[in-house]
């Protein structure tokens, strides 16, 4: 085939870069950036997704770009794993770009043209990360991704909280990058060739392979937001503008997952099963930690950020399970677990994007991020509310939407975990399934809180009456993403057809093993377990419609409107509804040891009684503050070297000279 998918994808990435640079032509014009450039970027995204999907089953292609340093050109490689993540990037970013067409306005803090440049640089660099085939290209693309997203996060850089959030983000991104760099350094195994091919050929001893895996897990985990490297996520996502939050949460976190998959299954050849336990443990802890903290948040974007931590935890649980199965030699089960993981990555990209973009509309319409000042917006913003409802139901893992499919596949994989030969492991893994089930149920709790407090009920502030619904292009963007959620939920077999190719190629297994029809998903024989979302949705819909028509046809009574029931207490007002803190109170009560709470309680003698509760992250005080104090102490000790007297500096040079001469002797 003379048509090279790699070249085509590369062209799309260059197109993004060109669009970004074109933004600098008329930097102050919102219409130019908004009406022309962002839709072009969306079209490029759709093209990229289509190309990647059609190229999944084709064999891998390589290319060497003349860019880079003289002895170190960029190597590129496109294989099935890259294609899946490129499709994710293209599909999700298309919806977000369409939305951004109408979103960015003047006075956001940065010039629209500059924003366009940063945005498309971000997209292009993420694509380059997915295509890179040597450590140098990878790190250059990774750094560009981190820097462009930093500038996007600090768009409104005049606000000090946003600046500090951006600083924390950049700090942890670079700490993670050091981990990744060291991991690549270990993996080259003595050849001092940093291409991925050299790493694939190098044979590391089990100890060094473990160190490489550990460093990669640390580095990529810092970018993905695994506990305990998660502290930047709840700060950076709310600080960024909503489309940027959606892009970071939906796509950027998945590039870290791509990195872990690439390192564990492709670059390292000696996979050990107990690495999977480490990843599984970290994933379960992140999932649990993320969801209980999401349940107690009062800021809508922080809630979604913590929910992203939970979903990344579930993804890493799947990755860990895949490694355990592959290391124990159970190939087909590893493929099932990997398909579940990749499916969840795809799902989360679309579900989370819908939610973040919905919050963007709410923010623009009301100017409020605090859940305690929202409410009743379903009447003023019906389009946003109903499309966000699709995302909410999807993330809560309800059939027949897409969140349920990946959860179903993951639970099916856990069902067979009792067959693993190692002794303690085969008992602990089903307990892991219990934790995943708990996190899914808690996610439902969080999402009912999110949707109920923002869109349902009565408005908690008088100013909310002026809220307006989203514009046409914003609706289009939301519609695209919500339709993707519904499509991924109702047609899982077609999606899994592509994902299975990826799993087989990565795990080096022969094809086949799925017993699915086009409308029925079955991992093994259909006798074991099967799921047919179209049939289920069809039957439920028929029953609902029949019930509605039947009841309303037979019993034709009127519908009257009246005031809400108030139990005889005539002065019920909007502030007596549940607040966000109130809705999270059962979680605070049941899981108290995990939170660091500060309460300010009123006494009977206060003239103006106040109640204040703030829930903080215990890991911040237990881990990060002592770490920062240690670093500061070490720095102070080193600062003692700076005496300010010339005689001392001359003494340093003298002592070094003597030492070197003695060494040579």
């Amino acid at each position, binding site marked *: 085939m003379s048509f090279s998918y790699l070249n085509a994808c590369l062209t799309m990435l260059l197109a993004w870069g060109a669009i970004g640079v074109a933004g600098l032509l008329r930097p102050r014009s919102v219409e130019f950036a908004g009406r022309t450039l962002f839709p072009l970027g969306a079209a490029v995204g759709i093209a990229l997704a289509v190309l990647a999907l059609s190229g999944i089953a084709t064999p891998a292609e390589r290319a060497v770009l003349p860019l880079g340093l003289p002895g170190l050109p960029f190597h590129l490689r496109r294989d099935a794993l890259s294609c899946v993540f490129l499709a994710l990037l293209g599909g999700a970013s298309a919806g977000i770009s369409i939305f951004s067409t109408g979103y960015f306005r003047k006075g956001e803090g940065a010039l629209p043209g500059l924003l366009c440049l940063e945005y498309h640089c971000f997209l292009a660099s993420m694509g380059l990360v997915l295509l890179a085939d040597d450590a140098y290209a990878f790190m250059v693309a990774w750094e560009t991704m981190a820097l462009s997203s930093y500038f996007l996060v600090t768009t409104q850089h005049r606000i000090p909280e946003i600046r500090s959030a951006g600083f924390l983000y950049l700090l942890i991104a670079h700490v993670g990058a050091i981990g990744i760099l060291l991991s690549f350094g270990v993996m080259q195994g003595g050849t001092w060739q940093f291409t991925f091919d050299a790493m694939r050929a190098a044979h590391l001893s089990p100890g060094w392979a473990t160190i490489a895996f550990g460093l990669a897990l640390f580095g990529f985990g810092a970018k993905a937001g695994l506990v305990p490297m998660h502290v930047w996520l709840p700060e950076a996502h709310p600080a960024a503008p909503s489309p940027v939050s959606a892009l970071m949460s939906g796509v950027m976190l998945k590039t870290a997952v791509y990195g872990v998959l690439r390192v564990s299954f492709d670059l390292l050849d000696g996979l050990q099963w107990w690495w999977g336990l480490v990843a599984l443990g970290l994933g379960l802890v992140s999932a649990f930690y993320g969801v209980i903290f999401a349940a107690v948040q009062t800021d809508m974007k922080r809630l979604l950020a913590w929910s992203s931590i939970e979903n990344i935890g579930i993804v890493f649980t799947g990755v860990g399970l895949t490694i355990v199965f592959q290391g124990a030699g159970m190939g087909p089960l590893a493929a099932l677990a990997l398909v579940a993981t990749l499916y969840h990555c795809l799902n989360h990209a679309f579900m989370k994007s819908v939610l973040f973009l919905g919050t963007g509309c709410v923010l623009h319409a009301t100017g409020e991020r605090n859940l305690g000042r929202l409410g009743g917006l379903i009447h003023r913003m019906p389009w946003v509310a109903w499309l966000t409802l699709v995302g909410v139901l999807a993330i809560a893992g309800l059939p027949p939407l897409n969140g349920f499919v990946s959860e179903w596949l993951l639970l099916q994989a856990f069902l067979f975990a009792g067959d693993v030969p190692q002794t303690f492991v085969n008992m602990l893994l089903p307990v892991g399934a219990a934790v995943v089930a708990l996190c899914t149920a808690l996610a439902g709790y969080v999402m009912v809180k999110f949707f109920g407090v923002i869109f349902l009920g009565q408005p908690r502030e008088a100013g909310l009456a002026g809220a307006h619904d989203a514009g046409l292009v914003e609706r289009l963007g939301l519609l695209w993403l919500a339709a993707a959620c519904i499509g991924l939920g109702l047609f899982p077999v077609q999606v899994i057809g592509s994902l299975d190719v990826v799993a087989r190629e990565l795990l080096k297994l022969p094809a086949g093993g799925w017993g699915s029809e086009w409308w029925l998903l079955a991992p093994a024989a259909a006798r074991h377990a099967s799921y047919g979302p179209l049939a289920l949705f069809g039957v439920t819909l028929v029953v609902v419609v029949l019930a509605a028509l039947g009841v309303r046809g037979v019993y034709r009574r009127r519908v009257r409107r009246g005031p809400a*029931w108030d*139990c005889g207490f005539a002065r019920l007002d909007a502030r007596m509804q549940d607040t966000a803190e109130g809705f999270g109170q059962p979680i605070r009560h049941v899981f108290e040891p995990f939170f660091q709470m500060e309460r300010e309680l009123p006494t009977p003698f206060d003239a103006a009684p106040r109640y204040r509760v703030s829930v903080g992250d215990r890991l911040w005080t237990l881990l990060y503050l002592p770490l920062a104090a240690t670093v500061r102490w070490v720095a102070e000790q080193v600062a003692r070297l700076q005496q300010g007297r010339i005689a001392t500096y001359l003494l340093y040079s003298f002592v070094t000279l003597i030492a070197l001469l003695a060494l040579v002797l």
Partner: protein
Amino acid sequence: MTTLGTATQLLELVCATLAAPAFLGWVSQCRAWLQNRSAPSLLQPYLGLRKLFHKDVVLAENASPLFRVAPYVVFGTMVAAAAIIPSMGTGLPLSMAADAIALVGLLATARVFLSLAAMDIGTAFGTLGARREMMVGFLAEPALLMVVFVAAMISKTTSLPLIAEGLTTRALALHPSLAFTAVGFTMVLLAENARIPVDNPATHLELTMIHEAMLLEYSGRHLAMMEWAAALKLLNYACIGFALFIPWGTSTEASGPQGLLLAVPVLVAKLAVAGAGLALIETLSAKLRVFRAPEFLATAFLLAVLGLLMHLLLGD
């Protein structure tokens, strides 16, 4: 997909939907007898539903379309769940489309829509009820999933009719793991259907309500649909319990139409005993404080996990 299978499916659907209020009536009869009161008639819930259907609907002024749609969605998911559970026969064609995990998902959908509808009007009672319902739900759902998991690990499949068939065809054996999960399942049934000791279905004190608080705003035919869905939920849970733990008597593909005819009285007998047992448990227990409910459900969850571990250790 045979004609017998389709016939079983439709029969189950229709019977479950029509008989659910009668089951509720039977439970309240047993309770009345145990409490030395004179019992209402078995068909009392039907009269209640008829009364509600003939009334006007009064909607709050700020009710959204979600509020009006929710009763039908909740009812529809409960009926779809009834179609998947093998109460009378195991050759159900729809069970290929939805297995036990999807069943738990359907029940979760009903719960989420109910909670969202409760939050819609924005009064203190509705949001309180929604919060408490989600609190009970977030522990009950994993417990139910673990119960299903244990049964699935024993039968090597997650399809409910196949689990039921597997249990009937194995030689009669004591399964301690199933005993643990049965206790856990009973506790989940009590919690999810708002029975004592978690919630009092006959209370009128709003501050103690969990399930009833979510229905405070509904009236007329909407309230009738919600009450019918709640009765159907109780029947569904009872039938899930039968399918997982005492499936003998259900018809299979092999037993033909006679098996189906035999299965109906067997099911009625099982429901009668289960209803009496439920009334007995309710009469002997006292209602827990709301914040003891998570402890109650955590015990159910741990019992289910313990059953799982027991299965992995003892190998049965």
